[in-house]
């Protein structure tokens, strides 16, 4: 039938790496990836444009920004504040961060569409209170090579000698830990039930419902 069953979906129950602090509330997806870089038909190559306007001036000279600092070049865990990823639904935003090297994001809170887009890429978005996050950001600043371990299943983050409790949304946790975050094949296997649902709805014209495969 289809090749969808061949897509391998890794379990993401644990992520580790050094951190990079990105401070500020309400950082929107236009900041994460400015619209002019979206005039492309693939996501390839978006990594270098992540946070572009905050990282470079009009002549493309680097500005003062954590992602331009040598000490954070190998970072894979981004530590952010509240309402991160608000605004536009563009998946280009987490795609750009992922392609820059980010595997997980820890923050005070995330915009919903952004968190959903991260999940679809297997990137955990875990949350903790404001004070805890600021302490972690300060620690990352002081320990740019320090390892941050995220135990997605246990909802714990460990750095240095500290272990903190974090929150991972229930569905996100299950999806990541059980390796079912790429939902296409899973939902495709319910194609008959979807068709039945379509038939029950008065507004769906019969001709719009495909024949069973």
């Amino acid at each position, binding site marked *: 039938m*289809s*090749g*969808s069953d*061949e897509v391998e979906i890794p379990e993401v129950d644990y992520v580790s790496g050094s951190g990079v602090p990105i401070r*500020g*509330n*309400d950082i*929107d997806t*236009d*900041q994460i990836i*400015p*619209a*002019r870089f*979206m*005039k*492309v*038909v*693939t*996501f390839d190559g978006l990594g270098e444009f992540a946070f572009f*306007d905050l990282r470079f001036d009009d002549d493309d000279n680097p500005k003062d920004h954590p992602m331009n600092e040598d000490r954070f070049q190998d970072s894979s865990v981004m530590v952010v504040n509240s*309402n991160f990823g*608000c*605004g*536009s*639904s*563009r*998946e*280009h935003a987490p*795609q750009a961060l992922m392609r820059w090297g980010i595997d997980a994001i820890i923050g005070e809170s995330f*915009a*919903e569409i952004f968190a959903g*887009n991260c999940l*679809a890429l297997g990137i955990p978005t875990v949350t903790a209170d*404001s004070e805890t996050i600021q302490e972690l950001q300060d620690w990352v600043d002081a320990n740019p090579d320090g390892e941050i371990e995220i135990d997605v299943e246990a909802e714990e983050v460990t750095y240095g000698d500290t272990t903190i409790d974090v929150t991972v949304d229930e*569905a996100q946790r*299950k*999806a990541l830990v*059980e390796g*079912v975050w*790429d*939902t*296409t094949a*899973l*939902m*495709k296997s*319910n*194609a008959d*039930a*979807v068709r039945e*649902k*379509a038939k*029950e*709805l*008065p*507004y*769906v*014209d019969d001709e*719009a*419902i*495909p024949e069973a495969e």
Partner: protein
Amino acid sequence: MSEGTLYDKVWDRHKVTTLPTGQDQLFIGLHLIHEVTSPQAFGMLRERDLEVAYPKLTHATVDHIVPTSDQSRPYEEDAAEEMMSELEENVREAGIEFSDPTTGDQGIVHVIGPEQGLTQPGKTIVCGDSHTSTHGAFGALAFGIGTSQIRDVLATGSVAMEKQKVRKIQVDGELGEGVEAKDIILEIIRRLGTEGGVGYVYEYAGEAIENLNMEGRMSICNMSIEGGARAGYVNPDETTYEWLEETDYFQENPEKFDELKPYWESIASDEDAEYDDVVHIDASELEPVVTWGTTPGQGVGVTEPIPAPEDLPAEKQDTARRAQEHMRVEPGETMEGYDIDVAFLGSCTNARLPDLRRAAEIVEGRQVDDDVRAMVVPGSQRVQAAAEEEGLKDTFEEAGFEWRNAGCSMCLGMNEDQLEGDEASASSSNRNFVGRQGSKEGRTVLMNPQMVAAAAVTGEVTDVRDLQEVTVA
């Protein structure tokens, strides 16, 4: 948990099953696609050897990159042409209907769906665009999705979602002169915050909402996402049905109107529905709202003082300070008198016919200020044609506005319509984020369309009610 709301009922009617993650698999009744967020999804389908499952429930338009001046093909900009060509190929292969510019039906995705009668009460509607919440104005459950989810919807006709809470926003009282739907939603976001709606769907209700026409309801639902709510809706009523009856779909299938009406009525929230939260707003207290900062929540009544960061809640102070520095505004001052360089009348929030009519009333008999570049970008080709028919184009052009073709345009600066340098714009759009309108030094002041017209003719943020009084006198 909410019970008996439109959200609960539409959710239940579309729920296919509960997935192992605990998310529900929801059937999607209408999938709208455009050129920016869909090409990668079609690419993923090809990689997996999958086909579009419900092409007849899918509809395409081109809006984000489409030039609003010269639309002859190939487009002047290579990247825009490539995106358009890719979309044309994808819809042709899949058999998806495409409201392209040659049809006369093209426009911003959230303008054309309602125009054509694709948007209906009780449908689940998704699009790779956060302003999909607009369609909730019709009592649909409509929300924005990312590209991987577009892939899911294309491949399966469904999406994996977690059910959210419902907050009823009861807006009572009558709106005063110069105050409109845009001001209601800017006020809601100001009060509840840009993340106040995370985890919620907003139900807009009350006298002030019921008295709005469909365009006003769309403006409100459109900006739900700016308050953090992925979806917002208004229960369908006679105003909704009157709109629907005039649309293509029901003109062509009049029997469907009577057939579907009981369904539409059945999914409206019950009188005794239970909500997770209820908020009250008194519309009669509102004045035109303008933003002073760089998030849509940083708004203020046009005659009210801009707040001092230290008077705001702790978590908002830092953002406010940076915003005031960027915008070059001082606490204690009002936004009235703030110099503007550009007036943008457009976007999925406020570029429908009544929006243009109200703005034209202000513009009539006046001239755009010498230092202002003013443009009107109708939301769709149909809005454009209707506006030209009734003489609005002439009114705007005689006053010195540019009259352009339909598209997203300067709302997000993906085509040639962009702010330059540190220009300040009076904009009827939805986002004042830094860089949003194409220049990272650019400054955006969000406001309703009449207020944009007023700013265009005076060259500064102006209380439109002052101009209206002059008109009356």
